[in-house]
């Protein structure tokens, strides 16, 4: 169409001012929420051990920065290892599952059952089986991430656009060529849907595992601060978890934009 000859391409980037303006809404949201929180603690004179004010939490963050940072790194490592393990096992499994209808029908109910088990219930069992080290935490993260990754990858692989399938047929591509040149790249946007869902769950998985039988990590820090009624410290840890989750999500979104610039536009 002649009109779309002038369609905006990724090359015409918006100006610097415009890009900063785009960052404004999320920043405003955070500022407003913090202000509201602060106002509640002041107006209702809430006790610090029930709901600490943002100022107290910020002070705790500074005072306990070394402790919090160490534990953040522990949780981050567990999260990333479990997430990568889920990719390493989930993606090949999705390939196998989509290779045959029989396998799909055999494996899917099992996957669904596995996913239906509450991960909170599994956490203590993992400690029994695997001890108090880092591995049960990594494994729980893996369990949480595994399902969305398998399902989305399988969905992507089995929903190749019909016109591209037909193109492959008309060129007489063999199975491997069809897979490598058409089906796999066509599935990547769907894979990222699963990855983005999984990464947000991954942090939660790590914290659940740390709640039972851990000696370090932000989840452990929250439990430990409860024992000494240090609510400000618990809040600091929770905020760090939230920030970690958001940062990981947007990193993944950036990776997606870099490698799959064509997604959502075709």
């Amino acid at each position, binding site marked *: *169409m*002649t*009109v*779309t*000859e002038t*369609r905006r*391409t*990724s090359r015409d980037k918006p100006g610097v001012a415009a890009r900063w303006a785009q960052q404004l809404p999320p920043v405003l949201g955070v500022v407003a929420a913090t202000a509201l929180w602060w106002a509640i603690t002041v107006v209702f004179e809430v006790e610090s051990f029930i709901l600490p004010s943002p100022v107290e939490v910020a002070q705790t963050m500074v005072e306990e920065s070394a402790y919090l940072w160490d534990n953040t790194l522990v949780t981050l490592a567990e999260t990333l290892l479990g997430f990568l393990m889920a990719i390493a096992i989930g993606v090949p499994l999705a390939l196998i599952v989509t290779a045959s209808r029989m396998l799909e029908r055999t494996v899917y109910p099992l996957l669904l059952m596995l996913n239906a088990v509450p991960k909170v219930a599994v956490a203590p069992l993992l400690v029994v089986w695997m001890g108090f080290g880092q591995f049960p935490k990594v494994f729980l993260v893996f369990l949480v991430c595994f399902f969305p990754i398998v399902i989305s990858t399988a969905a992507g692989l089995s929903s190749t656009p019909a*016109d*591209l399938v*037909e*193109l492959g*047929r*008309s*060129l*007489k*591509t063999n199975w491997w*060529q069809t897979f490598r*040149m*058409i089906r796999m*790249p*066509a599935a*990547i946007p769907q894979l990222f849907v699963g990855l983005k869902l999984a990464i947000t769950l991954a942090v939660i998985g790590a914290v659940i595992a740390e709640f039972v039988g851990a000696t370090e990590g932000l989840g452990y820090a929250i439990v430990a601060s409860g024992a000494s009624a240090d609510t400000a410290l618990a809040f600091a840890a929770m905020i760090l978890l939230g920030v970690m989750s958001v940062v990981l999500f947007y990193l993944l979104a950036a990776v997606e934009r870099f490698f*799959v*610039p*064509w997604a959502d*536009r*075709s």
Partner: protein
Amino acid sequence: MIGIRNVSQIYRTRAGDVEALREVSLEVADGEFVAIVGRSGCGKSSLLRLVAGLQEATSGEITVAGTTIRGPRRDIGFMFQRPALLPWRSVIDNVLLPTEVFKQDRRDARTRAHELLDLVGLNGFEKRLPHELSGGMQQRVSLCRALIQQPRVLLMDEPFSALDALTRADLTVELQRLQMKHASTVLFVTHSVDEAVLLADRVVVLSPRPGRLRQIVGIDIARPRSLGRDGHSAELGVLRAQLHDLLMTPEEVAR
């Protein structure tokens, strides 16, 4: 070059059998451009897909270059109604796709790809991704991809039907120019009488439900043709009117 002999196609559906084509026979000579027109449901796309080997005829035989069609073949190029470009590949890599599938010499293929893109006015767009192009440009890339395998026969299934009227006219002119230069055998399905008279040596009119060969109209007019003031408009006008009537009047009434 193409031989279609007594071809019938019946689709078995849950609601019963649908007869798409009945006893269609047609010979297309080497280098000839044949357009197939007909109303929707006349089986023209089915016929093309049969020649492409994308589906199998219920009865009858189809040969290309002397050998019977038993499946898709490398010497037959197919251009779809939609561009069907791989969205993750750049323009040039989309054009090169068939040569990669057929494991042809890379450097040679690249040279040809650049020539083809040049020919359709897409030089400078090689590195773009399909979503950055307009519909007309995408269909041009699709044409280059069909031509790079240097097919003996090019099959085109309403290739311009998803485009706006002016872009369609542009592409029709370009296809005519390409055809004059390369003179490959083309079977071109369309529901546009204008495209048919501009491009074809012969126009095959199919009647619908079931699709049967109704009439073959020879377009014996020198190229380049145009629907504008300069391009034999009188003769083209007569043929357009004739085809129009063939398409608009049911066979029973015309008889």
